[in-house]
């Protein structure tokens, strides 16, 4: 039972506004990811939810209870830190048991709970070691163990995987996802890694400059980015953004570059930014717009191939194409683009049209 409601939450450090009138409702049992570049206020938001950072303005509710001024231990949240933050002088067992000890849980119950958690996280053989004797992945498991042993209704995680190497990150990612399924608790997860956000989240809040840019499901955010920032932040390789205007015939134009748009997409003459995801190209077929371009660079990745191409005079695009396409550098190719999959943004406000 924990729905978290942020009502116009603001955090100021002196003159710096770290989080600006944030409105966010995190549903019970939801996996919410706060995604954004460095310095956008993710950690600050999480710390305010945890009670580690005073809220300058606004209200924070857990279910219907106002917890704005409650200290962390009254909020029944658990937190996992990027730095693991394990107590260095305590063994793994003592680290995991610590929150229960503070709650004066009976000893047999602590033992049982620690054993159970250790089994879940496969760290049973490490219980008598100290944090300094563990690898990064093992440490993060212990930190997770310390969080779940209390069975809190809210989990807060601040970039828990960013100190791990790529393979470990993948396995920890699925571990966290499994934990979420099993615990049925509310997760708030901070990351700047879009792949992590996409795979883990029920919903993503994309942040920038202390403001939420878009709040939606991963699919929604990917398919209908609210502005160019969100569009560019998600997806790898990045979305192609081309500045231009709407030609009299309703197509997109930049110099010699033309691309057909869905009918009535925008007023002719309007300055717009066109967004084309690298993978939204295919073989030419009826109903598809034709895109002609000269291949500049071919990067075969095995499973697929990335092409850097130049269309029109100076429009540089990155395309993701099947590995079977044997494009040569210097060759001119023609591909098909589904106009319905194109994104249009206002050139001045950067907002989606």
């Amino acid at each position, binding site marked *: 039972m924990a729905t978290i409601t942020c009502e116009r939450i603001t955090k100021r450090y002196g003159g710096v506004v770290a989080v600006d009138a944030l409105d966010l409702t995190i549903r019970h049992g939801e996996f919410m990811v706060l995604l954004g570049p460095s310095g956008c206020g993710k950690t600050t938001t999480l*710390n305010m939810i*945890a*009670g*580690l950072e005073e809220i300058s303005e606004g209200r924070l509710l857990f279910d219907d209870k106002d917890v704005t001024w409650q*200290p*962390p*231990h009254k909020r029944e*949240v*658990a*937190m996992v*830190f*990027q*730095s693991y*933050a*394990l*107590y*260095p*002088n*305590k063994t793994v067992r003592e680290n995991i048991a*610590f*929150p229960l000890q*503070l*709650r004066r849980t009976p000893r047999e119950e602590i033992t049982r709970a620690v054993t159970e958690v250790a089994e879940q996280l496969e760290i049973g*053989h490490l219980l008598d070691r100290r944090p300094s*004797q563990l690898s990064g992945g093992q440490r993060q498991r212990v930190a997770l163990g*310390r969080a779940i042993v209390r069975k809190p209704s809210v989990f*807060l995680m601040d970039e828990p995987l960013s100190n791990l190497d790529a393979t470990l990150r993948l396995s920890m990612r699925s571990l966290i996802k499994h934990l979420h399924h099993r615990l049925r608790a509310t997760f708030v997860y901070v990351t700047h890694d879009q792949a992590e956000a996409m795979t883990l989240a029920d919903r993503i809040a994309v942040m920038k400059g202390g403001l939420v840019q878009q709040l939606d499901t991963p699919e929604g955010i990917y398919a209908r980015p609210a502005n160019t920032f969100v569009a560019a932040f998600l997806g790898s390789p990045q979305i192609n953004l081309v500045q231009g205007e709407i030609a009299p015939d309703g197509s997109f134009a930049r110099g010699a570059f033309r691309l057909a748009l869905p009918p009535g997409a925008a007023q002719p003459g309007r300055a717009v930014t066109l967004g084309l995801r690298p993978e939204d190209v295919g073989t030419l077929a009826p109903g598809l717009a034709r895109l002609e371009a000269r291949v500049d660079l071919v990067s075969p990745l095995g499973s697929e191939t990335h092409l850097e191409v130049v269309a029109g005079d100076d429009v540089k695009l990155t395309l993701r194409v099947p590995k079977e396409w044997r494009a040569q550098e210097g060759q001119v190719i023609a591909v098909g683009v589904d106009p319905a999959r194109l994104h249009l943004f206002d050139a001045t406000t950067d907002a989606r049209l």
Partner: protein
Amino acid sequence: MSGALERRPGPRRRPALGYDERNAAILVFPVVAVLLVVAAYPILYSFWVSLHDIVLTRPLRRPFVGFDNYLRIFDDERFWLAVSRTTVYTVVTVAVTTLLAVLVALLLNEAFPGQRILSALLLVPWATPSVVNGLMWKWIYDPTYGLLNALLVQLGLLERYRAWLGDPDLTLLLIANAAVWKQMPLAALLLIVTMKAIPDDLYRAAKVDGANVFQRFIHVTLPALRPGLMLVLVYETMISIRHFDLFLIMTQGGPGDASFTLSWLIYVETFRSLRFGTGAAMSYVLAMATFLLSWALIRWLGKRI
């Protein structure tokens, strides 16, 4: 997985002196020579003295007596009196210094207005020469002009001026107070440095885990502070046990024998009675005691880290 953590050092052989090491030896030689002259020579010479019955009133008679001087010390009841005075003084000084240093470090580790100025002020007593410190406190305790008397009388806590240092029950504690005033800042500074190294996330984790201020101190601060505390304890013990200048300036061992400590005894024996042989032997006993005590402290505290 556990195998990777085990370290099994192979048999090590001492390599012959390599080219670099030979050069190093040449370069280090002057320093070693100076140390030998200014440190080793006096140490060895005083040991030689301690094995002879040297009394400066009869300078030409200096028979070799072996360890008689040492044996005589342990039969001397002044020695045992001095040991008990020194013990009280050292325990009080070290305990109060350490406790206060922890408190001050905790306070100054927090951000509050004036924290920087206070930190700078903290260093004033430390920078005061100990002779000046002794004179200052002697004045503060002075029976007729003393600040302490004036203050207590004005506050109505005291009826009449007292000769503070003349009270045998208080003397040692009052001198200890002067020592603490001078020594505490360095200890506090050392602990602050140790505290600054504790990651903030540990405190945040402890807060979320439900630890209150006191529990955070016990479970986060104190364990991290242990190396610093050990250093403070050992260092303070080593210097307090040998304190001399405060006693010379403030009480000269008195009133009666109330502040008759080991270093005072050595001074009296050597430079007032001019019995250099026993004086040197006593110095040796004090030095060995300091050494053994420090070693024991390090062993004992080291095991708990």
